């Protein structure tokens, strides 16, 4: 880089910091045409009544300004219990684990969400590292804009220290590039990576995603993971999990918003179905599907202007989420090659929620996988189990 290039970067940083206009400097990591082609391809899958054919994969559910606004509305809906409880209890849970995060950390946040949680994290990290670099990563530039504004509001972080990255972080090649970028930006200084708001649960191959994300962490780095949890795993609780999501109309509008903005379907939110299942002994799984209940075949226009059939009873999977069994968390962390530094749990203390549902916040560090639990690790369960 020449001296004039350096001056240009410096001038750009000053222009962002000194302007009253809300500039944001976004690094776009992917060709958005490829993303549109992938979304179109996913909507061309074979018919299925079980939600295993056509689908809108995680990331696309938030892609575009319409879904972003619908997401923000859903987060403000008191009937969307998971999000409300997650936001309400995060301050307390973060307060319990933040003492284990040392000084000098930068912050890389995967899936920035509403930005409320990142703001709390940034406030803490900034006190210990005024030169902090904040790198929110999301597939949706609109989500990045929304979340980053909230995350940096009044925390005293200068604009040029915020580097939003538009990138689909479920693709391993993208993560390899991101790793290079982060290491160039921070050098050997430690980074706190975070994946909050039960985002992990939205991916089909969630274990693989977690392993890929945690592989970014070097020995000096930490990883903050937040997941929705359940004390037990059975069909009744899967049904309870379904009801927890199904009662929010704003949530239904959010999950259908990607369909509304990428197809010409006339959306009927009553055609949104929630299907719960038990995923082995590790999680309760909830699939949110949109089913053609008109009694006849429909022609649906895709983003590439192609018209494809959407047969009667066919489904489009709109969203996937899980509640992880608390007992399975150690195994999930271990398989990702991480060890738990500390963790905290918060129950959903409201009558509308099933007993045993809650959120867990785990602070992880790379290193030797945690050994399999000894028999006496479950001593609390042995004593009070039955």
């Amino acid at each position: 880089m020449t001296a004039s290039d350096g001056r240009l970067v410096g001038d750009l940083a000053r222009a962002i910091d000194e302007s009253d206009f809300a500039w944001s400097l976004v690094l776009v990591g992917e060709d958005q045409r490829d993303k549109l082609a992938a979304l179109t391809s996913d909507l061309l899958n074979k018919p299925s009544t079980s939600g295993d054919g056509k689908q809108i994969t995680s990331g696309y559910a938030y892609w575009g300004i319409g879904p972003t606004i619908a997401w923000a509305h859903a987060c403000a809906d008191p009937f969307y219990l998971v999000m409300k409880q997650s936001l309400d209890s995060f301050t307390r849970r973060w307060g319990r684990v933040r003492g284990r995060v040392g000084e000098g950390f930068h912050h890389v946040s995967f899936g920035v969400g509403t930005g409320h949680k990142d703001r709390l994290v940034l406030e803490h990290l900034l006190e210990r590292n005024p030169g902090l670099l904040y790198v929110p990563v999301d597939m949706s530039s609109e989500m990045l804009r929304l979340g980053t504004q909230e995350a940096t509001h009044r925390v005293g972080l200068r604009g040029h220290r915020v580097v939003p990255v538009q990138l689909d972080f479920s693709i391993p090649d993208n993560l390899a590039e991101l790793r290079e970028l982060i290491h160039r930006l921070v050098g050997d200084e430690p980074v706190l990576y975070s994946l909050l708001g039960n985002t992990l649960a939205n991916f089909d191959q969630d274990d693989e995603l977690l392993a890929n994300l945690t592989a970014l962490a070097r020995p000096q780095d930490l990883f903050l993971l937040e997941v929705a949890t359940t004390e037990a795993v059975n069909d009744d609780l899967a049904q309870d999990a379904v009801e927890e999501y199904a009662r929010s109309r704003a949530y239904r509008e959010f999950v259908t918003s990607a369909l509304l903005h990428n197809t010409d379907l006339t959306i009927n939110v009553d055609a949104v179905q929630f299907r719960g299942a038990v995923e082995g002994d590790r999680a309760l799984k909830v699939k949110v599907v949109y089913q053609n209940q008109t009694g006849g075949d429909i022609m649906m226009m895709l983003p590439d202007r192609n018209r494809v059939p959407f047969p009667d009873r066919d489904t489009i999977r709109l969203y996937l989420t899980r509640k992880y069994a608390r007992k399975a968390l150690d195994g999930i962390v271990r398989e990702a090659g991480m060890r738990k530094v500390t963790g905290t749990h918060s129950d959903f203390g409201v009558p509308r929620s099933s007993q045993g549902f809650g959120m867990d916040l785990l602070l992880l560090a790379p290193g030797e996988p945690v050994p399999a639990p000894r028999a006496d690790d479950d001593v609390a369960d042995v004593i009070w189990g039955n």
Partner: protein
Amino acid sequence: MTRIAITALTFGALAVAMALGVTWFVVSPPGDRWEPAVNSFALLAGITGIFAERWAAQREQRNQAIGSIRLEMARNRETLDGEAFSASASRGRRVYPRLVQSAVDSALSSGALSPHRDADLIDLLHRWRTAVASVNRRLELTEMLVFTSASEEKAEQFHTALHRANGFFQGVRALLDEAQAALGDPVRP
């Protein structure tokens, strides 16, 4: 043996006296029958009085035992519904209050309850007594393990296990509901 002999002697004497009194009444001339009649009725009142007093004493003893058990159950209810055993209570280290069972022990050992009439209640109280002993023992183990562990997470693990749906503690609450219902006390909604 001595008790049986005294009982036999007492009731034998009363029976003979009663028979003699009735005979005396029959053989007496009509004008002299007041005295054997009074004598016979006095003996009859003595015999029935013994049984009546025994029945009343047993009934009073049973009522006192049931009343004490009710108070004890209400006290245990307050303990279980209290802050220490609330799911929203602090998850840190703590010493838990214990459940009490002295009234139940006393009732079972004193024979205040009738093995025939109160068979179901006696069975329920035996189960409750076993549950209380088990709770208190498990609380001791919990406190020992939590206080001797350097990790605060341990206390959280025990808190979670204690309040687990379908766990042991929920079973104890259900048993208390059943016991209070059997004693005719109002059960929590």
